[in-house]
């Protein structure tokens, strides 16, 4: 589960809201008011590596998001608007009405922890690093949607980034803001002097451009391995030391809002499994922890720890049981519908993710929380697929399946087994599949659960079309395109290059879902869901709504995946030492506690 928690946490962080509570300056005890040691864990990364560098790009790097790793801004996961941010290194920004550019204004008193000011040069250099390591707005792939065309230093504290309008994306600004900023006087040597010329040349076509792209990506490997001699951060903290048991960060006195950052020190405790986190929380050791899956009894024990509080909010992710429609009988929509009726989603959620999820109301492709805002009254018109064995049987019969000795078989009488695959370690997925397996077997559908070594292998084999049925993260908000590209994007055959949408045959170019190119949706007519999804890339929220409604209806009838449960963002905090935590359902819950501190929210308990 730890790995899944990491994936969900990263998905949440990749997308971020709420009014900044501001917080008053506490003058007692010097700058920051109160001081103290803040103890936490990094849920996205189990196992501290004392020898890893303070490098945010390094997978084991000792760089902690929001603490000593800073972004231009912090993306709010607004339910519907991907371009809402909290300030980070950028104090403010202007987005052109047509999304063609974003102008970033750096915090006027932002300084690195060595006392040097944060300049436009630092931002530009960091954008260069983003190109080498892969980033949505700074992608090297020619024709990628929402890619930047130019980075221009306006003055020492202002940078303007222009979008390549050949294939625009409404979340271009988000793609720009959601990037790390590192000091040019430390990291700048990684970029060759002719980097920007090379980048320009790489945008063309032909062998020279290919070679330039390869060279730029090769720099990315150096970026990943780079070990700064000392952590120089523009965040509220800098790394002091790491040992296998903990990482210690101390307050950066040069941080632009240092006066409102309360803790003097932050300690990240090492952990290797959920059970360690449960023990830390039960003992009241942690001031904050991100979502860690816990069974109900453990959750009760954690709640009973002195000062323990649980804050819940929206997590823009859902999980679905997705089908490979190239494989029989999943090519038949009635089989998929039959399974949707047969599976009791409430029971699955209760067994697999009682604290981290809520049963999906239906399959709409959208998380139930923003669904109302996106598709409004259409939501109630969708088939909720309630648990109904009789309806399931009717659908199976419609699909031509036969019942022999109480077991459903394929139309030709050969046995049918629903083989579900999950990555090892994703215990809630495995538990859900085990529950679904039992439910199916009890109703005459043979089923089995197969696990594979890890998530990367799972994704690779899934994309290669090796599985019949697999679990799939969907409804990845808040951007409308991101939500539906999980169902009607590359995995289902549609690729969007340079604004041109093409459909690939099942089994080709990552099309493992293998659904039809056109769907006849009741009440809508014939649609090409992939093309509609691609339109969401550049659509304004108002333009997106009717498209979202059509796609939700398509997903509901077509069922490329059965939406099982929508994730809930569960955060653990302890009020014994600190106060000022975000409110229930706050959009800040989707950002690390380091951001809460830099916004001046966290205060020492008096």
């Amino acid at each position, binding site marked *: 589960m730890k790995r899944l928690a990491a994936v969900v946490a990263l998905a949440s962080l990749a997308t971020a809201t709420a009014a900044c509570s501001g917080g008053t300056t506490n003058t007692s005890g010097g700058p920051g008011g109160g001081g103290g040691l803040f103890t936490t864990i990094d849920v996205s990364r189990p196992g501290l590596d004392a020898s890893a560098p303070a490098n945010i790009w390094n997978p084991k790097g000792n760089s902690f998001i929001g603490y000593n790793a800073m972004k231009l801004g912090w993306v709010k996961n607004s339910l519907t608007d991907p371009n809402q941010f909290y300030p980070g290194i950028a104090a403010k920004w202007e987005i052109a009405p047509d999304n063609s550019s974003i102008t970033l204004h750096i915090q006027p008193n932002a300084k690195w922890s060595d006392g040097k000011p944060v300049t436009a040069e630092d931002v530009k250099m960091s954008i260069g690093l983003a190109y080498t390591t892969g980033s949505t707005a700074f992608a090297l792939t020619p024709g990628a949607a929402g890619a930047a065309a130019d980075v221009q230093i306006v003055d020492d504290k202002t940078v303007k980034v222009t979008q390549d309008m050949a294939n625009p994306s409404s979340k271009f600004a988000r793609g720009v803001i959601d990037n790390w900023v590192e000091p040019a006087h430390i990291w700048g040597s990684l970029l060759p002097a002719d980097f920007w010329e090379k980048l320009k040349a790489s945008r063309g076509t032909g062998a020279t451009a290919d070679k330039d792209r390869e060279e730029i990506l090769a720099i990315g490997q150096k970026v990943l391995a780079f070990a700064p001699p000392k952590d120089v951060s523009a965040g509220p903290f800098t790394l002091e030391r790491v040992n296998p048991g903990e990482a210690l960060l101390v307050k950066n006195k040069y941080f632009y809002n240092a006066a409102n950052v309360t803790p003097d020190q932050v300690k990240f405790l090492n952990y290797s499994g959920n*059970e360690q986190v449960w023990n830390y929380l039960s003992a009241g050791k942690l001031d904050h922890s991100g979502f860690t899956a816990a*069974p109900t009894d*453990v959750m*009760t*024990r954690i709640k009973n720890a002195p000062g323990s509080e649980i804050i819940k909010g929206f997590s823009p992710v859902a999980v679905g049981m997705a089908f490979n429609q190239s494989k029989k009988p999943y090519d038949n929509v009635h089989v998929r519908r039959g399974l949707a009726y047969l599976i009791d989603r409430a029971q699955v959620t209760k067994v697999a993710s009682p604290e981290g999820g809520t049963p999906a109301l239906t399959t709409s492709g959208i998380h139930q929380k923003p669904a109302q805002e996106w598709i409004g009254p259409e939501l109630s018109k969708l088939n909720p697929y309630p648990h109904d064995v009789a309806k399931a049987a009717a659908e199976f019969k419609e699909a031509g399946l036969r019942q022999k000795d109480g077991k459903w078989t394929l139309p030709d009488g050969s046995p049918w087994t629903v083989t579900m695959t999950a990555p090892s370690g994703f215990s809630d997925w495995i*538990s859900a599949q085990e529950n679904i397996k039992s439910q199916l077997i009890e109703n005459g559908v043979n089923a089995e659960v197969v696990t594979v070594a890890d998530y990367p292998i799972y994704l690779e084999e899934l994309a290669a079309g090796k599985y019949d049925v697999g679990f799939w993260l969907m409804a990845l908000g808040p951007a409308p395109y991101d939500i539906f590209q999980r169902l009607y994007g590359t995995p289902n055959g549609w690729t969007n290059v340079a604004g041109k949408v093409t459909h690939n045959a099942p089994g080709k170019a990552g099309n493992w879902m293998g659904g039809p190119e056109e769907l006849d949706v009741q009440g809508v007519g014939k649609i090409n869901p992939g093309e509609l999804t691609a339109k969401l890339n550049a659509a304004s929220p108002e333009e997106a709504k009717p498209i979202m409604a059509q796609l939700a209806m398509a997903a509901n009838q077509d069922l490329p995946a059965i939406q099982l449960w929508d994730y809930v963002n569960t955060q653990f905090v302890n009020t014994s030492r600190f106060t000022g935590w975000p409110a229930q359902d706050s959009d800040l819950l989707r950002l690390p506690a380091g951001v809460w501190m830099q916004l001046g929210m966290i205060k020492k308990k008096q």
Partner: protein
Amino acid sequence: MSVLLESSSTSATMRRNFWAGVWRVMKRKPSRMVGVVLVLGFAFMGVFGPMFYPAQLPRDPNLITSPPSAQHWLGTDDQGRDVIALVVTGSRYVLLAALVTALITVVVGTGIGLFSGFKRGRWDTVLMRLTDMKLTIPGLPLLLVLSTVWKFGSPTQMGLVLGLLGWGGVARAVRSQTLSLRERGFIEAARGLGLSTTHIVGKELLPSMAPYIAMNMLIAVTGGVYAQVGLFFLGVLPYESNNWGQMLNTAVFRSGALTVPSGLGFLIGPLLAILLLTLAIVLVVDAMDEIFNPRLREE
């Protein structure tokens, strides 16, 4: 003199009646009886146990990871299934894999050890260097690597891999015994009589080492159980809900058996099975040791 006569008469009786000797050894320490009963019990459980339960175990989604009760003596698992039912149905895979492990360990180890010790010379050098190499390869890390490419879908596959990784120790020990025995008088006599190598190895050497080999085989069963349970516990093998190792993994890492008491039964079930199996084998080996080693017999 009469004592001597009586003693020699008892020894003679024991030689004539092997089973009477076995019975005496068992009776002297009743714990050995317990061991034998447990081993037979595990064998019965592995062969017939799963027949007592339906293929799809009954479950109660309202009783997830519940503590022991009158209805569920060791509680339920994370799916609401009876822990005892899981332990029993899971025993077939675990025990069969362990048995295959033990068989391969003993057959390969004994074969190589006997051949090497009896032939000596170049064969011995080559085979023992091979054994040394095998012994230097750390088993668990190799298994972890192997598990990424091999799914160990059946217990025989699992046992085959574990057996091929575990014969080194047996081969070394059997070789040492062979080297020692081949210099003894009765082997010399057999050679002098012109008996064939097959006869000397099969009828003279092997029976002398049979008890030792049998004991090694039993110990290899426990080794096989530990290794596969360990791999499942670490979560590196494909999910099998009723494998004892998987149960331990789920109990600790998902149901919080080490954090809250409700999951304790779920943890204790497979642990108890492993513990009892180990205990049973230790007790039986203890009995075998005395049966086959005259010096240990307490008359």
